[in-house]
């Protein structure tokens, strides 16, 4: 019954778990940045799912959107 393919959220969770291995060999002070990027990448999973696009592209787009928002907020003071 129901779905037989993973949801975009499940896909993102698996991606984050994989990228987590990167954190284990990173400098401690860099870890929060990686963690933050992984958080930003997951913020638009509903839209990625709705558009039915490749999740990895969707993840990068999500990070870019959130970084652009922060730049605009910074510019607007």
């Amino acid at each position, binding site marked *: 019954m129901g*779905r037989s393919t993973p949801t975009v959220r499940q896909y993102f969770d698996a991606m984050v778990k994989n990228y987590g291995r990167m954190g284990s060999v990173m400098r401690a002070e860099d870890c*929060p940045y990686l963690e933050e990027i992984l958080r930003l990448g*997951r913020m638009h999973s509903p839209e990625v799912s709705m558009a039915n696009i490749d999740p990895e592209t969707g993840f990068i787009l999500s990070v870019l959107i959130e970084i652009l928002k922060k730049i605009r907020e910074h510019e607007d003071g």
Partner: protein
Amino acid sequence: MSETLINASGGDTITLHYLASSGIRTRRVRNKTWIFVSGSDYDLEFLASQIESQDSIGFSPDTGHDVYRKFRGLRIHLNPSQIRDMLYAIENIGLGRKFSVYNADIDPAHRFLAESGLELFHIDSPDDLDPEVPAVSIEVMGKKGHPEKVRINSGQFMELNDRTYQDIYSAIRDAFIVVYDNRFDLFSSLLGAMRRRSLPVSYRTLKGGTYQSYGQVHYNNNRVYMSGKVMIESSSFIYREAGIPGLMEMSRISSVPMSTVSVITPGTAVSSLEISHALKNGVLVPLYKADHEGEKTVSDLLQMDRGGLVLQPDPGIYQDVTEIDFSSMYPSIIVRYNLSPETVSRGRGEEVPDSPYRVRTDVQGFLSMALSELLEKRLHYKSVKSMHPVYGMRDTALKWMLLTSFGYTGYKNAKFGKIEVHESITAIGRHCLSTAMRLAESMGFRVIHGIVDSLWLKGNGNIPDLLGRIRDETRIDIVEEGRYRWIAFLPSRSRIGALNRYLGLKHDGTFKVRGIEMRRKDSPGIVVKFQSHALEILKNCNTIADICSAAGAIRKLEGQFMKNMASFPREDFVLRISPSMWKDQYRVRNITKIAMESFSRDVEISPGQQFPAVVVDKDNEVIDVDGSYDTIDTGFYMELLKRSFEPFDFLISNACGSRNSPYKPLYLFG
């Protein structure tokens, strides 16, 4: 007073029970039935020649139709008890592939009721109350399968002695519906003890067992049957959710006897309702179906194999929020968009948004027709449920049936299910929610969150106007579920917004709380009490600033609970353990495994079999499952309490704009 049909059972003879002014009346009716077989003319002729030699079985060439088309076949007339042997013969004669068989696996009593147009628990108007059927509830307490105390109809628990045994016997004898709790076989042991005291109770037990539903493991206790009674085990899902009125409503709408309704899932009840609809309308019900999924490409699978649309909320507290909900969204989509196995295809018809499918609208779909009465009834009881508790219970029962009606369209064994229908429902659902979002934003609202059929909108625009426009565009009814003074969407461990974890105070003074500990069935009472008390404090907070002002009171409450833990009664520390595996299958020695091992050797806990337990000493693996200990593990319960503080800590730190949030950044690694 006219008679009301309240039960039907049997096979070759159907026993009908009526409620009359003089009491319960029984009538027996001879039951002859038929099955339908289709195949090539040559094969059917051969089958007919084989059946001719059977004395008590007749047949006639005939035309029948399933949901798709008309076809020729043989109608074989026989007794229900002969069906199994006949199927075996057909299977062998047709080498398992030459024939399609219909109407061969329907419960005889269910079929008799549907074909005869008889209604169980008939009421003249949907607003009438149920017939008053004599009922009794028996609850037994004891240890390790040995009954010690009993109570009748929620009275006082009584010690077991000759007199109480006699009282129980009389109560059961005089009732038609018997609600019993057979955890650890306490009720069947009680009946056994009565029999040993020469009380003439006649019963048999049917072994229960573990089953899975929607990814969760459940357990049916061993069931007890008594001739001439409707026996309801109190752990029955629908009985727990909707009581006897809910079971009666399900029985009424699906034509399935109440004792059967109490042991089947709501999904099976929906399936039975669809079968009843087919029987009443002369639509043949296939024994095995071959249409559960058509061929599709991988890209079509990836495009269509998606669920409802769930947005990602930003964690935080919001004011001026309105929640709007589509009413029974998925069943409404089935009915209003005419979705059914025979109407959804890649051929002609109205386009299903964001999918390769189309729906025929020139014919009425079987499924949409079968579910329309269920949907209309549910929407009626939803609108009047505050007027009488019975309406509320009927509403709950119908709600569960409607909820599962969607899932069943994707279940490969559902008689009238088809994956393409399932996919079309979710596609239209996503389209409806995104349409509602677009309209809301065009009218000045900001979408805070959305889950499948609900939206939370911030702003002070015209809600009735918005709802009207959404209804017009989507064809699905949508209502205002509540206006919030404030609502907090809580973060998940990864600090992005949790999808279904929020608490909000509505303008009518009530809270809507989802996903926090007090909503979990396995949380101990002390945790539920703390969170309920904390909500009491927040009840007076009209604004985010008020929440910040309440910080002191919440902190004080947290302190009191931690400090005074020892003064809480023991029942506040009871955990409800729900094992999902056998104890040997647990690799980690967690609370569940240790609790399962804490029973004596003669008690084996099955997966799904829930039981209460108190943690006495977690480090030394001491868990109390039978009231043998007086103490508790304070450290263990303090940890649980601390975890239950977290949603309120988030609320306070967010309301007060604290830069020193108790939510420290979570490092996923190293």
